[in-house]
């Protein structure tokens, strides 16, 4: 005899035959179960090597036709052990690791870390104003270069080739500026605990103003390429919806949060580096979709340009002031001016430490080989990176090396929203949704 198994009816054998006891079910749940028949679903693996997953993000999709029913995000393919490595470097060297996390926003990584260290050291107010202004200017430039990548690749992934090239043209302009100031295009390790590694080259503010002018003009072109384009609107409007409740639940910050209507910007809410002295607006949108995020990023570019202009004005006023904290116990001893041979420190500096002061030499030696000591304790400092709240949580046991450094990386938090933004949409919408989050896997995996 065949046995039937029925979830709603159990049966038992008695002497008079089989007796069924029907338990019954909730009709609504039954209906929804029927509605969610899983028969025609396929599982597709997207990434970690896929042209549209922003690096090495892996997405495991469950599709019903073209509709996405489930998204799992797989991360860790770029895990580099940066936080662990930092524990084995001194406080200053850690900057070179931190800068390589979110490789689109190196200055922000550095600043967040340095602000935290400065807090621990208690020198937050001793950082020279010129250094702060330079930091602000660099951060805003970096915000532009980062947004350019977000917009360009986002457009490319939705099939528009043109914007990509226009965006990278502008990004190159910014990177050239970085190179002129720091010597490197990316991963500069320019911001150091106590200030910045070196002053601006002469006449830089003039150039910066030129750059701002050029960029402002170029941004108009870029906007024209996409805003108002019917296909672009169709691909972005109402896609990847995530409302404010979702954002706050998942701890999402940055343009994604602002696209849901909350004007949350750390530069306004918890000003650092003297942001309270700049005039700029927080950009929000209320569509909570990909298009809103796109608009927010576009509009933030202009605000960044405004800040850069103000910073350039301030820099002109602060010409000649130091860019590193005065405390010689912390400040890197060198002036990092080039020597006559084009390498190394300036002759005056060498002459000073080698010739005039034995103490200087010892101090130099200790500082370079061992680094400065930081009082025991912990500090948390956050900055508003292009992707949201980027923060460093620094723990010191009083030694020359961090006991623990943890970064609160916005990409990591924001990436949690992938499944909320994609489930229920179409396959192609995932691309738009992920692009609108603009995750940087280097930051996610660290």
């Amino acid at each position, binding site marked *: 005899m065949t046995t039937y198994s029925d979830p709603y009816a159990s049966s038992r054998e008695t002497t008079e035959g089989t007796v069924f006891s029907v338990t019954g079910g909730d009709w609504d749940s039954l209906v929804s179960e029927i509605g969610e028949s899983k028969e025609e679903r396929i*599982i597709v*693996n997207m990434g970690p090597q896929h042209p549209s997953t922003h690096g090495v993000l892996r997405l495991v999709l*469950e599709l019903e036709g073209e509709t996405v029913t*489930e998204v799992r995000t797989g991360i860790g393919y770029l895990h580099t052990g940066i936080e662990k490595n930092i524990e084995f470097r001194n406080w200053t060297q850690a900057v070179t690791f931190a800068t390589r996390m979110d490789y689109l926003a190196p200055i922000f990584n550095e600043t967040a870390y340095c602000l935290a260290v400065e807090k621990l050291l208690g020198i937050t107010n001793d950082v020279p104003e010129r250094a702060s202004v330079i930091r602000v200017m660099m951060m805003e430039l970096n915000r532009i270069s980062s947004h350019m990548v977000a917009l360009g690749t986002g457009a490319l992934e939705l099939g528009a080739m043109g914007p990509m090239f226009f965006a990278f043209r502008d990004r190159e302009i910014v990177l050239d500026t970085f190179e002129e100031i720091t010597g490197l295009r990316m991963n500069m390790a320019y911001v150091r605990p106590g200030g910045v590694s070196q002053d601006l080259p002469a006449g830089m503010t003039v150039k910066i103003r030129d750059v701002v002018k050029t960029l402002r003009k170029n941004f108009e072109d870029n906007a024209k390429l996409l805003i108002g384009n019917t296909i672009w609107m169709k691909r972005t409007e109402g896609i990847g919806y*995530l409302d404010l409740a979702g954002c706050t639940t998942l701890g999402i910050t940055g343009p994604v949060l602002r696209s849901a209507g909350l004007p949350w910007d750390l530069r306004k809410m918890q000003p650092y580096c003297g942001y309270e002295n700049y005039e700029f607006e927080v950009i929000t949108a209320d569509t909570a979709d990909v298009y809103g995020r796109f608009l927010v990023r576009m509009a933030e570019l202009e605000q960044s340009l405004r800040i850069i202009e103000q910073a350039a004005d301030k820099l002109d006023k602060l010409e000649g002031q130091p860019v590193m904290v005065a405390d010689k116990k912390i400040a890197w001893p060198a002036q990092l001016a080039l020597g006559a041979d084009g390498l190394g420190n300036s002759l005056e500096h060498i002459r000073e430490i080698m010739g005039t002061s034995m103490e200087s030499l010892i101090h130099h030696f200790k500082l370079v080989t061992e680094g400065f000591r930081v009082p025991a304790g912990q500090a948390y400092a956050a900055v508003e990176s292009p992707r949201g709240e980027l923060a460093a949580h620094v723990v010191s046991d009083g030694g020359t090396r961090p006991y623990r450094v943890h970064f609160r990386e916005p990409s990591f938090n924001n990436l949690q929203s*992938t499944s909320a933004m994609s489930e229920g949409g179409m396959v192609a919408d995932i691309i738009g949704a992920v692009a609108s989050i603009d995750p940087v896997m280097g930051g996610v995996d660290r």
Partner: protein
Amino acid sequence: MLTIQTPEAVMFWFLAPLSVIAALGMLLVKKAVHSALLLAWVMITLAIFYIAQDALFLGIVQIVVYTGAVMMLFLFILMLVGVDASDSLTETIPGLRPIAITAALGFGGLLVSLIGRAKLGHDAYGLTAANSEGNVQGLAQLLFSTYVWPFEVVSSLLITAALGAMVLAHHQRAVPRATQREQAIARFRGASLGSAAGLPNPGVFARHNAVDVPALLPDGSAAPNSISATLKARGDMLDSAQFELGEVDNTVTEEK
């Protein structure tokens, strides 16, 4: 009176065996897609036959309708329904196959011999006269005068069939599928926020990345919800135990 030119004869003796072979092949191959391809080939040869027989329009329409639409539909359905399943060719109904083959031989033989014996009372005329104003024009003349009624009937049949197919194949959902927007809103208002950030992804670190391998939990056991419920239901799931690191020491000791 019709005389058949040599080129047509050559074409016929070349293509006719090919089409018969293809038809036989369609009967015998295991994969349905191959059957479909062979049938498409038969249809194309028939189209060529039509064209050779002064039915130019019909030949082209044969390709458009049969090869282009009907067979494409078949391929579509084949891809939807069990893509790479090969059919078993063993017979399940006892005695059917010998009956079928005998019957077929008898049927074919009878047909052929009937055709051989058939007499028309006149020679083949050929279509030169009927096609004098053009094959398309001739057909149109007939279609829109003598056969206008069947034409209309057939067209309404076609519309009915299309509608019917849509109704049949339409997958009525018991509850409308929630849009992304609705899902995203409901997600953060549900009873639990446990899965608000999505489910974990499968794969064992640096050892196996496939979607059917459950991830490992810190204690080395497989994480049940790391692979899709659909795969689980279908039973397409590998045992991740083989990727476990047996020697992982799970004991925690105080660091000095």
